[in-house]
């Protein structure tokens, strides 16, 4: 390689590996922050290995990637060989076009369209749930196939067609000519195709999201669902481990492949080739006497065996998808919304399994999955493609689910711990007769600001977010309902007003704010506030503590609650698709019992409606006075405030209208 080439390559590699270096460094961060380095620590590696859900998702990701890439490579290579032999221009163009479709289809379309189809077919055959391991695998194979074909086909086209013919003239059977002459020629294409398939499958989020079944989450889905509560260095630790594993594998394969051994191998190969040629010549002589009837059959055998690979894979995945556990509970909750054993906390899910076994003498399995927003959860559930036993939606979404008959009434006799839920959290608008829900957490939106930047005098109301003094230091929600909410609370108009003019006015206000806004954010808020990148943001009260804990030295985060503001309740419910209502109710009851409830309240850090928690000395001590003052302000009647200021479910027309306004704001 010339020097200029070396320099150029090096520069590109600096670009490619700069973020990787960041990952490596911050995986050793002592604090939770991904932007402020506070000291060396290995604790995130420990956390990672204690996090069984994440490890499980890594395993799921690998299983899908291996199956999908092997099958796609086999099928794609066969297809490329066939396409290359096609003489009909017409069929060829048709096949080329079809092959290109998954590549020129945005992944969100591929995902949605496949989900629509699987759900449709599932209903046709009366399946209760139509998405499972098979559907995500089929989807992955489908989007990998074109990459394999597009890698192999050009190799076939570049190959000298005289080569296999020459081999056959020299006595090779067509199959042998294919394996010994064509395959080595196109091997680089096959390998690249395989590696690309594997990589794409490993990294895919969108298509997996739409096609995966109940309880089967891959790593990208898990990470994406952390977007309300932010990504932790635990994930960086995982990326670092992956990096070193690959590096090690690569070094090993290179050691085994050094030049000496290659020369030796080449010599051996040459000898073998010579022997083979002799044998081929012998056989050719024989063949002249007895023409073979075998070759066509052999070809069939190969083609069939390619199909067999697919069948075996199908069987494997059926076995994999039909767990042998007798009783399974499928729980669907927000990302990072349960105490999971990290940083010495209680692993609630694992403890529940243990407790159940001790209590009832029966082994059960909890399949715990996460979602990123109420809307995502609703879309999944409404498609009828998945089935969950316990879900944890927010107030307005619960109202919608009740309206649409998607929840089952609870048998509160099975949930005796419901008695610890305070009066203030019963009979709220989404469930006025207390039939469907058990509150899990509640909280409200407040304003977090950096006291080193913001003047105390400017704080106290929503106006801070519109204060031109702090232009480009303000963060606004990156979702329509919450962003419009801030403008509507500020103007003192109802966030549930059916009058379109009210929404138009809110848009005007947001447009006026837009030049002041640094960024529209969800979980990025953590990074930006902790590092001093921004100075003002509206977010959930409980998350303020997470940020304050990880703030940089020159940042002093403070919090206040403007009035009025958004109050919300997230509650446990049982959806109509539940398959084991009794077990679901036992689980809900368990979640209300003292130990797990406290663990969850401390982990999530939102306010808790459970008096077993709020009256527990240890909890009160752990939280500290300051935090309690923020989390549990003296609100008077929570129910009154909540019923007045919480979001209500908007009908389709209003949702559509809001969405159009949101687009207008975003394109300005």
């Amino acid at each position, binding site marked *: 390689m010339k020097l200029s080439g070396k320099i150029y390559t090096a520069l590109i590699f600096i670009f490619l590996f700069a973020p990787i270096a960041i990952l490596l460094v911050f995986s050793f961060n002592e604090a939770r922050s991904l932007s402020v380095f506070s000291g060396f620590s290995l604790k995130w590696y420990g956390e990672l290995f204690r996090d069984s859900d994440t490890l499980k998702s890594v395993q799921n990701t690998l299983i899908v990637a291996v199956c999908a890439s092997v099958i796609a490579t086999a099928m794609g290579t066969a297809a490329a060989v066939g396409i290359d032999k096609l003489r009909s221009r017409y069929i060829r163009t048709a096949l080329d076009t079809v092959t290109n479709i998954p590549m020129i289809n945005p992944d969100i379309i591929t995902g949605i*369209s496949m989900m629509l189809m699987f759900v449709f077919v599932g209903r046709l055959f009366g399946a209760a749930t139509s998405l499972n391991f098979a559907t995500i695998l089929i989807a992955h194979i489908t989007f990998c196939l074109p990459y394999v074909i597009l890698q192999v086909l050009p190799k076939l086209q570049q190959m000298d067609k005289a080569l296999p013919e020459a081999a056959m003239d020299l006595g090779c059977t067509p199959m042998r000519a294919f394996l010994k002459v064509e395959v080595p020629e196109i091997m680089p294409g096959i390998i690249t195709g395989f590696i690309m398939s594997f990589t794409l499958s490993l990294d895919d989020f969108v298509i997996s999201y739409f096609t995966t079944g109940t309880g089967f989450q891959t790593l990208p889905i898990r990470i994406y669902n952390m977007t309300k509560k932010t990504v932790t260095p635990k994930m960086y630790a995982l990326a670092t481990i992956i990096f070193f594993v690959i590096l090690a594998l690569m070094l090993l394969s290179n050691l085994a492949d050094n030049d000496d051994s290659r020369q030796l191998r080449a010599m051996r190969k040459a000898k073998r080739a010579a022997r083979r040629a002799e044998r081929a010549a012998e056989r050719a002589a024989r063949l002249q006497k007895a023409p073979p009837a075998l070759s066509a059959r052999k070809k069939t055998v190969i083609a069939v065996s390619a199909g067999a690979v697919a069948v075996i894979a199908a069987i494997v995945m059926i076995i994999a998808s039909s767990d042998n556990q007798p009783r399974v509970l499928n729980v669907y909750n927000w990302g990072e919304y349960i105490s999971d054993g990290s940083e010495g906390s209680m692993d609630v899910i694992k403890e529940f399994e243990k407790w159940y076994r001790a209590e009832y003498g029966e082994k059960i399995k909890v399949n715990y999955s996460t979602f990123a927003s109420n*809307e995502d959860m609703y879309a999944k559930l409404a498609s009828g493609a998945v089935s969950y036993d316990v879900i944890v939606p927010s107030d307005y979404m619960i109202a919608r689910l009740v309206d649409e008959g998607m929840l089952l009434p609870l048998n509160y006799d099975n949930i005796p711990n419901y008695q610890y839920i305070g009066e203030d959290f019963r009979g709220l608008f989404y469930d006025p007769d207390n039939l469907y829900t058990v509150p899990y957490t509640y909280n409200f939106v407040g304003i977090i600001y950096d006291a080193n930047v913001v003047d105390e005098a400017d704080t106290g109301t929503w106006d801070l977010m519109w204060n031109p003094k702090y232009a480009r230091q303000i963060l606004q929600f990156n979702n329509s309902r919450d962003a419009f909410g801030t403008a509507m609370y500020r103007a003192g108009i109802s966030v549930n007003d059916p009058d379109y003019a009210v929404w138009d006015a809110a848009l005007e206000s947001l447009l006026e704010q837009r030049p002041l806004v640094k960024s529209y954010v969800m979980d990025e808020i953590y990074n930006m506030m902790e590092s001093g990148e921004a100075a003002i943001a509206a977010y959930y009260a409980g998350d303020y503590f997470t940020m304050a804990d990880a703030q940089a030295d020159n940042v002093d985060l403070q919090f206040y609650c403007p009035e009025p503001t958004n109050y919300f309740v997230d509650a446990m419910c049982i959806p109509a698709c539940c398959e084991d209502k009794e077990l679901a109710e036992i689980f809900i009851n368990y979640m209300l019992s003292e130990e797990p409830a406290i663990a969850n309240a401390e982990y999530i850090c939102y306010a808790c409606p459970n008096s077993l928690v709020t009256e527990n000395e240890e909890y009160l001590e752990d939280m500290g006075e300051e935090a309690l003052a923020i989390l549990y302000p003296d609100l008077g009647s929570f129910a009154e405030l909540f019923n007045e200021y919480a979001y209500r479910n908007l009908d389709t027309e209003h949702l559509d209208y809001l969405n159009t306004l949101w687009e207008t704001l975003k394109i300005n």
Partner: protein
Amino acid sequence: MKKDLLTKRLTIAPYGAWAVLFIVVPLVFVAYYAFTDDSFRFTTANITRFFTTTANVTDETGAAREVHTYLLIFGRSLKLAVISTVICLLLGYPLAYIISRASDRAQKIIITFIMIPMWMNFLIRTYAWMTILQDTGILNNALTALGLSRIKIIGTETAVVVGMVYDYFPYMILPLYSIMAKMDTKLFEAARDLGCSGAGVLRRVIFPLSLPGVLNGITMVLIPSISTFYISQKLGDGKFFLIGDAIEGQYTANNLHFAAAIAFILMVILLICMAVMRRAVDKRPTGGV
């Protein structure tokens, strides 16, 4: 010849069946949703909505004008995607050539190293870029330490393009490299012997031969970058609303039919573009050989 026919059928049949079932049929579903309303009656309203929705936009000078919402969004997505693709191609082409001329061993090592970042989740990689590019980020801290002035990069088009180029660069390199590695260097020598200059060899021999790889590379970078929504959200300060955001937003708002319509239109436009490009390449005489 009959045997040949059998091979052809056997090799294509599984793929053909698969393609129809899992590629074509789902597309029919997209079209079906695009052309129906909530109660599945035929309508073209979703399609017309894409082309007729307007909104008022104020530009930097404060002047308000009326724009076609979705055409504007599509235009912006296309612009960013094209810029990213061109940068990928310009950066990737020389690199692919350098790699393809290196020793076998070096080739293997370099290609593996190019792939390694892709094995680390792209959501996380994008997060890492935020740490680098933000106003108080690594890059700006480094600039300050060197006594230079800070630059505003996060939230700009540049940041979004950096993210796209970074994430999709390997998709450009791999097809380019795989076709260049196969090229016969004797052709270059021959061209030179026949009086071709270095630039001439590149233009008349190397480039035409590498066209299929260039085309694949362009497709593989352009498509994901046109429909991404994660990169633009994280690195664009949430201020770049692209066509992927529009589809996702409509889906989240439970507007599946309009989401399908946007998708359908996007798909048709891309299909036509690709068909035109491929035809143009097919019509070219295969290189100056």
